[in-house]
């Protein structure tokens, strides 16, 4: 059994990267509070650490190295300037609790970011503090709850969620102490308005919607949805996961939404970082302004200052120790300034062009659309249920084989209501020839599936590992390296 070395395998007693730390100081700790045994951290040289982690990085697929059409995740190019400018030494060194007088430059960027996000979403207020989309959702639902409570309307504890929603929506509603009511989607992908009308009532706190939906189509009757929910006394929450599809084309505020979160790591191109940090700024309309999470940057004359509990006594409170993922916010700010007014509108245009082109090409090649006859938004779904039934090759097999062809797989098995689905989102930053190459790969895999299904089912072959045993991973939990166990296994 060959195995890639862990950093601990390079470790030798007494070896350290000496240049990286001070030396010769004794800590003064009373004996009963002192650490007796050193933690198991690697003892390696600087080069060993650099080489080990550089090699690990090379095992990853990433936007910088591969086409990454992961639906609902908006894996677009992360401009390098955003990173470099957010990492200017003065920005990195600024302590979050330093007086506002020493942070006017940083706060100017944050204030302008708030203003730009208001404009592009059509909302009246923005708070930048939520640290990820899910925390933005939490803030949104908490504000809806706080709003009803402030009016003495205590019965409104139900959140309506379409069946196609991201799993975070129902999880968030539960976390906020609400109960969840699911409503179905029609075969054409729109919400079932009859079911919605039946679901609303004096118990309705609000509805959480993604538009375009996770089915890759625009909810055409959004104004009717808004009217039904508002007439029943509920509020509308906009899940900004798919904001890239409509940026500068239609604004959530104009559609009738009362509160939204934006995934800055999707639409505004901050890095995904192997799973984070994200950033989930929230926007609100007039009636939710008093409830926004703090802190927020305010402006008085030409000075910026933090708004806190004293300025917003009805705030839902704080979501992070300081002000959220400030460095991520700076990256989003740089990105928005580089796009500018016209560039912001181009995002949705070219995201839609790429998605609809890829959608058309794949249908030409015989792949089945889950929602035929609809415009793709910035993403679309194809279903491989026919291949699964006739060839025994399912969506996961196609996804794994795509890795061998040098493409990251699309999102698989989400949304849950479309069988054997691939949710494909190319984003606006991919060139036509890359989309064409992706089509060619899927066509080639289809041919392989017809001729030699086992080959596709055994994929991938060219990656650092082949398909992993998830059942074993969950049953025989191995979550930390145990040198004693490793030594016993080796002997």
């Amino acid at each position, binding site marked *: 059994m060959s195995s890639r070395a862990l950093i601990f395998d390079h470790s030798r007693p007494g070896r350290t990267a000496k240049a990286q730390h001070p030396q010769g100081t004794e800590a003064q700790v009373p004996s009963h509070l002192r650490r007796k045994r050193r933690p198991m951290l690697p003892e390696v040289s600087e080069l060993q650490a650099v080489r080990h982690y550089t090699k690990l990085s090379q095992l990853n697929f990433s936007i910088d190295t591969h086409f990454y059409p992961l639906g609902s995740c908006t894996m677009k190019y992360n401009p390098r300037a955003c990173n470099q400018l957010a990492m200017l030494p003065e920005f990195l060194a600024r302590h979050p609790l330093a007086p506002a007088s020493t942070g006017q430059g940083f706060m100017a960027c944050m204030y302008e970011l708030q203003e730009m996000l208001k404009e592009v979403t059509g909302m009246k207020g923005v708070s930048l503090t939520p640290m990820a989309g899910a925390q933005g959702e939490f803030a949104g639902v908490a504000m809806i709850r706080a709003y009803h409570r402030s009016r003495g309307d205590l019965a409104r504890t139900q959140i309506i969620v379409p069946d196609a929603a991201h799993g975070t929506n129902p999880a968030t509603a539960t976390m906020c102490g609400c109960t969840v009511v699911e409503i179905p989607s029609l075969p054409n992908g729109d919400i079932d308005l009859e079911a919605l009308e039946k679901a609303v009532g004096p118990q309705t706190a609000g509805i959480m919607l993604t538009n375009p939906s996770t089915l890759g189509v625009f909810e055409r009757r959004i104004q009717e949805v808004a009217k039904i929910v508002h007439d029943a006394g509920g509020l509308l929450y906009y899940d900004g996961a798919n904001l890239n599809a409509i940026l500068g084309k239609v604004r959530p505020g104009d559609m009738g939404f009362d509160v939204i979160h934006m995934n800055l790591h999707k639409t505004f191109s901050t890095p995904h970082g192997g799973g984070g940090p994200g950033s989930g700024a929230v926007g609100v309309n007039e009636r939710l302004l008093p409830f926004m999470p703090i802190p927020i940057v305010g402006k008085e004359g030409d000075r910026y200052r933090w708004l806190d509990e004293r300025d917003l006594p009805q705030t839902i409170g704080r979501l992070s120790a300081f002000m959220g993922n400030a460095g991520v916010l700076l990256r989003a700010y740089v990105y928005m300034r580089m796009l500018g007014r016209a560039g912001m509108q181009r995002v949705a245009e070219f995201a839609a062009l790429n998605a609809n082109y890829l959608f058309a090409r794949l249908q030409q090649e015989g792949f089945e659309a889950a929602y035929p006859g609809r415009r793709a938004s910035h993403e679309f779904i194809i279903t491989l249920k026919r291949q699964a039934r006739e060839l025994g090759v399912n969506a996961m097999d196609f996804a794994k084989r795509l890795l061998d062809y040098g493409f990251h797989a699309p999102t698989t098995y989400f949304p849950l209501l479309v069988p054997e689905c691939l949710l494909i989102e190319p984003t606006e930053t991919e060139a036509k020839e890359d989309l064409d190459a992706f089509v060619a790969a899927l066509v080639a895999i289809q041919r392989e599936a017809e001729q030699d299904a086992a080959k596709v089912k055994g994929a991938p072959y060219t990656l650092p590992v082949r398909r992993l045993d998830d*059942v074993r991973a*969950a*049953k025989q939990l191995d979550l930390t390296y145990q040198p004693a166990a490793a030594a016993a296994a080796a002997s």
Partner: protein
Amino acid sequence: MSSIPADLKYLESHEWARLESDGTVTVGISDHAQSALGDLVFVEVPTVGQTVSKGAATAVVESVKAASDVYSPVSGEIVAVNEALGGAPELVNQDPYGEGWLFKVKPSDTDELSQLLDAKAYEKVVEREAH
């Protein structure tokens, strides 16, 4: 086609129930349910002595891709749980109606048993789901 023993009672949510000679009711999940879930990796059973009501989420079965609540078909007190599943959740996959049972309830109202589906009715539920 999954097996659906004729002598058991069922819930639409795929639990089975068997009235034992000592008056207790043994509960598990059906063959169809275990096969739809795939290889189970964890089973969370209730604690003995706990009271449950009919339809209450009482146990959880977990595979790599899904986690499902198991509802109690009857109200009553938990009198036994299948401790063997702690180390061997695969028993549910291998023998859903035997070694893979989940818990036993001492029913407070035996009439509730008659409200459950018989094998024929449950077979229709399974068929309907296939379409």
